[in-house]
């Protein structure tokens, strides 16, 4: 019983993310005070980096649970993920970005150079005749300034460090966050590797009427006004419900908009986008070759639609070579401030 009274040590950190996961934590409203009764938050997102040395001084494994949100986009985020892994008994990938790469991983359709080119050169308001781009190390009159290295690709958290649990969603709904917190506090966590959400497809919990109708064409969301009571897919609007994990509360569907898959694939549909593509194909009426046309015409951005949140976890891991390359670089330059001579845009 004495041990049950011992307060848990919790850490929270954000990497390449938007802050929406933090707002979602705040949206448990007054329950946040109940959390404080059971747990000490020893690290908080903003606290972490500049207390880098303090964190390092903690004994390894002394943090009970780390809730890590955000993808890995630069060298600083990778180093902090590794540090937190060492210090934490349990690492939780919190939110779609940490779980699957999330929206920032759409950048994996491009490389670093083209991103820099657009942001610092070709955007219509940018005036940059000298073609300056941010440098990881820059000498100014009084000394050197440093920036983290911007990687060529975005990685999900378990590409960088081992992860015990996954809480999906962009952001995770407050109810799901609270369930996860209760599981952590009570010590009733499932088997390591589990996702703390539903096991079935979103279609199972969706209340819209399904009539097993086939479609002859797909429509984009701005092209038709869908019936709010009926299945969106059967009205020809691409919805990732059949291959996406349930547990979100069908919030987008309640606003009469389709699912874009922020809970990631169901356990069966490991390859989220490919599974959705085949789900779409089975909906189309007609013979094999006839069925292709509406898909090709109506689904104008398959990669960005079917892999909206999961590109970094796709088998289409087009940047794997880059991963190997920077791992080698990181081994050669273990000091986070030692980015000397390394251009952010190199």
């Amino acid at each position, binding site marked *: 019983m004495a041990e049950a009274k011992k307060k848990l040590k919790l850490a929270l950190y954000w990497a390449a993310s938007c*802050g929406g996961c933090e707002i979602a934590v*705040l949206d448990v409203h007054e329950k946040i005070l109940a959390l404080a009764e059971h747990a000490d938050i020893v690290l908080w997102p903003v606290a972490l980096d500049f207390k880098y040395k303090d964190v390092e001084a903690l004994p390894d494994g002394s943090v009970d649970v780390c809730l890590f949100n955000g993808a890995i986009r*630069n060298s600083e985020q990778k180093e902090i993920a590794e540090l937190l892994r060492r210090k934490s008994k349990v690492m939780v990938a919190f939110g779609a970005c940490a779980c699957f790469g999330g929206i920032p991983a759409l950048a994996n359709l491009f490389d670093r150079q083209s991103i820099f080119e657009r942001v610092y050169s070709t955007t219509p*308001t940018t005036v940059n005749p000298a073609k300056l781009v941010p440098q990881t190390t820059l000498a*100014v009159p009084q*000394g050197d300034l440093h*920036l983290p290295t911007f990687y060529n690709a975005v990685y999900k958290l378990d590409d960088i460090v081992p992860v015990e649990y996954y809480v999906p969603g962009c952001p995770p709904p407050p109810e799901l966050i609270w369930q996860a917190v209760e599981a952590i506090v009570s010590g009733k966590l499932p088997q390591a590797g589990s996702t703390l959400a539903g096991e079935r497809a979103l279609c199972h919990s969706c209340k819209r009427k399904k009539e097993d109708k086939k479609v002859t064409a797909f429509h984009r969301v701005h092209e038709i006004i869908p019936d709010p009571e009926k299945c969106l897919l059967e009205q020809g609007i691409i919805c990732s419900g059949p291959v996406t994990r349930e547990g979100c509360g069908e919030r987008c569907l309640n606003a*009469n908009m389709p699912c874009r898959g922020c809970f990631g694939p169901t356990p069966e549909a490991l390859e989220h986008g490919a599974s959705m593509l085949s789900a779409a194909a089975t909906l189309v009426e007609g013979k094999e070759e006839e069925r292709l046309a509406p898909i090709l015409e109506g689904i104008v951005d398959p990669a960005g639609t079917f892999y909206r949140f999961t590109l970094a976890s796709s088998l289409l891991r087009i940047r794997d070579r880059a991963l190997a390359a920077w791992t080698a670089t990181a081994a050669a330059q273990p000091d986070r401030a030692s980015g000397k001579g390394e251009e952010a845009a190199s």
Partner: protein
Amino acid sequence: MTTATTRRVTIDPITRLEGHGRIEIFLDEQGNVADAYFQVVELRGFEKFCEGRPAEELPRITPRICGVCPGAHHIASTRALDDLFKVEPPPAAKKLRELYYCAHMIHSHIAHFYALAAPDFVVGPEADPAQRNILGVVAKVGLEIGGSVIKHRAYAQRIQEILGGRPTHSVMGLPGGVSRGLSEEERKQIVEWAKSEVEFGKLSLKIFDDVVLANKAYVDLILSDGYTMKTHYMGLVDEKNRVNFYDGMVRVVDTTGKEIVKFPARGTAYLEHIAEHVEPWTYLKFPYLKAKGWRGFVDGQESGIYRVAPLARLNAADGMATPAAQEAYEKFFATLGGRPVHHTLAMHWARLVELLYAAERLLELALDPEITSPEIRTLPTVTPSEGAAIIEAPRGTLIHHYQTDERGLVRGVNLIVATGNNHAAICMSVKSAAQAVIKNGEVREGLLNMVEMAFRAYDPCFGCATHSLPGEMPLVAHIYDHQGNLVRTVTR
């Protein structure tokens, strides 16, 4: 790392902007501030990876720029789509968007003022750091007001959830309208909440009156040189030059408050007036007024640097469109010596004037009989090519600009976000505050909070409720001697 004649102070809070930030302060031989750099150390590249996406999906992609103010990106993106598809939403759809957006403003302004700004003023800038947080605020103002803060932020989140499906990363925005209407039952509920928000807005201004304005030390701090900067100001106004968050004209006034330029918030006219400068030591660019040009990090009438956000909006407008907010607007300028007000910390007061306006406007819209109309979509019929829109995000003017091919697949995206507009000004405010508190190599204990206050005024994301709840936003300053040896660490 340091040269032989300088010392270096590093403030590395890694705090939220569109990512993370860091402050580097260099001291000269006398130990005074030689220069200061405010670095944004993160980039995600939305301008690039939105390319290839169907334009109508951008209201569901671009809000991930900022999860604290996602409603601003959602609405800016949706309005840019109206312009892209040359489609006019039905009146009810426009009103629903504005109603949603008032709720978003209320959530953001409440979170910023009570969780972030209030600890400095209500608890005090020199107070025990352990007390200087939202819990300290609650201890000081009482549990009743504390509970009221949580409740009124929750109402605002709930309204966004009703219309947008969820409060963070809402989904209802479509070119030509919204995906979901409002039922009579929901409308009645929102009316009740909105009435309560109006009272809460008035209460918030009274708290500011009692705690800040009644305390001479705070007023002196607000008026002090270290927190004063003469810049131009930008903000959205309606046809009577009153503050508007959702639509209208972008108005820019100079350092004397005189209008320099006014251009439509819909369309690409902004390209004639705004340009962006690049520095190699930060990932974020520096917008400036094209007509003035980029003249470096200097304020004044000839500089191209302008500011956005609540103080700028009040400075750029002739008044507020609702009665109680107008009264508060008049008192604001009467107290601070007339328009424009150049005192950075007055931003907090301006934010509360806006909170009251957002609440009053929310109530007006919820009482509008047209708001429950089922006519909420106009289907686009035009082949898209280019569209842009400007709205006021909680932190200031926000620009979304899209170019597409004939199928509506995105070819080019340009984004100028609120904090981007303020980037140069934030750099200068930080330097100015550092110069005011570091003299002859002596770093006053209050340094960290004083410098932090300079940029906190601009950016709710730095220390929004989420980050402040468990305690004070900690900072550390490393002070190096002229050999580059660490001689002192100031932490809180």
